[in-house]
């Protein structure tokens, strides 16, 4: 088991480096000079030169890449052109909001998605099944901005139960978490249902029944552990995706999370900030996949062997 985990971790390193390299090349080699972006087109050439030298922009790309990576390893992503602050500080400030939103949304997603999927599978083709599947289809299909605006209209404007936007207490996170959680819950519920239905056809389920187990024990102890493998993977990737910043939700509900920072960086052509947030997000997605692999190995002994 320890060897398996080590192997997975080691494999993740080149992936992260590869993504970093592609990202660096895309943002630095494409036409468009950062200095002109920063200062506009009509500035003295001497001033441009001095800036280029100060920012080491005349060094070969590879040298700059290595400098960037060694910096990133020390949690140093450079300075934002626009805000003139350390990128790492900007990430650190926005991250807590994103984490809060992620935790709330993931809770909503799992607490609704998994039970709905189980009920739909066990009682499949019944009214309950149809209801949950319709509910999840809506969650998947409704665009976040539309569902978000609708909720703001109903719960904040009409009923006045919840605040419209902001991030000052947990109450502010209820609506964004519901909107985000609903869409993830839909995917989880459908995946849980189809996997559980498939698992219930296996011979070992018949064995468990022939043993005299209760149906609930057959489902929870014998079927679910097998059926959850792909679901766990999706859950981990979803959480990683949420941590990378739920751009749309954060914009609608005015939460200054990572997604907002990245979107602003794009709008301002703030390359160091954009590069930093994307690299950070990539790291989280890779970590999420790693976590999924490890959890699956705990659930299924066959994966551990290799």
């Amino acid at each position, binding site marked *: 088991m320890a060897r398996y985990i080590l192997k997975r971790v080691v494999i993740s390193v080149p992936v992260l480096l590869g993504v970093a390299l592609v990202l660096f090349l895309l943002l630095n080699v494409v036409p468009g000079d950062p200095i002109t972006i920063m200062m506009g087109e009509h500035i003295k050439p001497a001033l441009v030169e001095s800036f280029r030298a100060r920012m080491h922009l005349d060094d070969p790309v590879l040298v700059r890449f290595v400098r960037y990576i060694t910096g990133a390893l020390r949690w140093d992503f450079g300075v934002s052109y626009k805000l003139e602050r350390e990128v790492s500080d900007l990430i650190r400030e926005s991250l807590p909001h994103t984490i809060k939103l992620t935790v709330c949304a993931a809770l909503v997603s799992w607490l609704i998605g998994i039970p709905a999927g189980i009920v739909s599978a066990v009682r499949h083709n019944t009214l309950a099944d149809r209801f949950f599947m319709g509910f999840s289809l809506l969650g998947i299909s409704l665009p976040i901005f539309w569902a978000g605006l609708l909720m703001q209209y109903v719960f904040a404007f009409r009923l006045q139960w919840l605040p419209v936007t902001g991030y000052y207490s947990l109450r502010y996170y209820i609506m964004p978490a519901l909107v985000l959680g609903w869409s993830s819950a839909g995917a989880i519920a459908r995946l849980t249902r189809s996997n559980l239905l498939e698992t219930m056809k296996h*011979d*070992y389920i018949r064995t468990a029944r022939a043993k005299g187990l209760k149906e609930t024990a057959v489902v929870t102890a014998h079927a679910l*552990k*097998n059926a959850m493998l792909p679901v766990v993977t999706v859950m981990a990737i979803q959480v990683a995706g949420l941590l990378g910043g739920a751009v749309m939700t954060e914009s609608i509900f005015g939460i200054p999370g990572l997604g907002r920072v990245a979107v602003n960086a794009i709008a301002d052509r703030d390359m160091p900030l954009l590069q930093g947030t994307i690299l950070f997000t990539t790291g989280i997605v890779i970590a999420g996949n790693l976590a999924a692999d490890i959890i699956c190995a705990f659930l299924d002994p066959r994966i551990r062997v290799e």
Partner: protein
Amino acid sequence: MDTADNGTLSIKNLSTHFFTRRGIAAAVDDVTLFIPKKSVVGVVGESGCGKSVTALSVLRLVSRPGRIVSGSVSLGGEDLLAKSPAEMRQIRGSRISMIFQEPMTSLNPVYTAGRQVMEAMMIHGGTGKAEARDRTVEMFRAVGIPEPERRFRAFPHQLSGGLRQRVMIAMAMVCRPSLMIADEPTTALDVTIEAQILHLMKELQETFGTSIMMITHNMGVVAEICDYVYVMYAGKIVEQAGVFELFDDTRHPYTLGLLGSIPRHGSPKGRLLGIPGTVPSLLDLPKGCRFSPRCDRAERYCSEREPEMYEVAPGHKVRCFHCSGGSKGGSP
């Protein structure tokens, strides 16, 4: 021998039908079957003849759209069809256990072999974990699993087919059931392993006094282990006899066909005898005798009327017009 009270299992006029979209399929049609105490009874037939559904009906595990529509199943005099679902669960795994054809897929891949065997004991025996563990290891030893302590912690994928089937047998025997149903237990195994497993089952049957209902399509397995045999065709019993009687004085053309399908050393000419045609669809059964379209002795009346079970000798019954008056046969 049909006295219900001294037997392990008595099935009377059992019918299990599948209510499919294309019609009703009588997978088990008016089957009467008796398993005496401490005996091995074979149920033989081609795939799709209803032998597995008969077994699942005994455990009341027939899945939808199948349903038991009539008849009775009694275990040691108790009517199983009258039991509540909770009572039925108490019987499954403790008084009747079942082992399946595919040892590769019949064990749950995510739990250790030991845990899966222990589970049966813990839900029925009310035994503590430590005791269940000890008895499981003991059972592993009894079914001939080498290094039982190590194998207790092994996952199914770490065991060979033969060992997995031994684990299944251990699971089936650990609660000392009065009846073990074995559904093609050796079909997926090598011939050498098959002989070992059959030998083991016979041995356990003698040691623990458990009766075995052996479901198979293999006449070799029948000869090896069974005391009494029922031959099934398209949902019906067509011949029943003691194992020696069945082999020495075969009456039903279908049974003859099954026996003719076994390759035999020293038989004249190398050609294997098969049964022409295939098993009829249960949704579209031939009129009269169900075997008549494939039977080389079929007369016109065979496809008009259905034969009853004729007793041709004590304990030997045959569902065929031609066998009622001795092996030469005659008209009804």
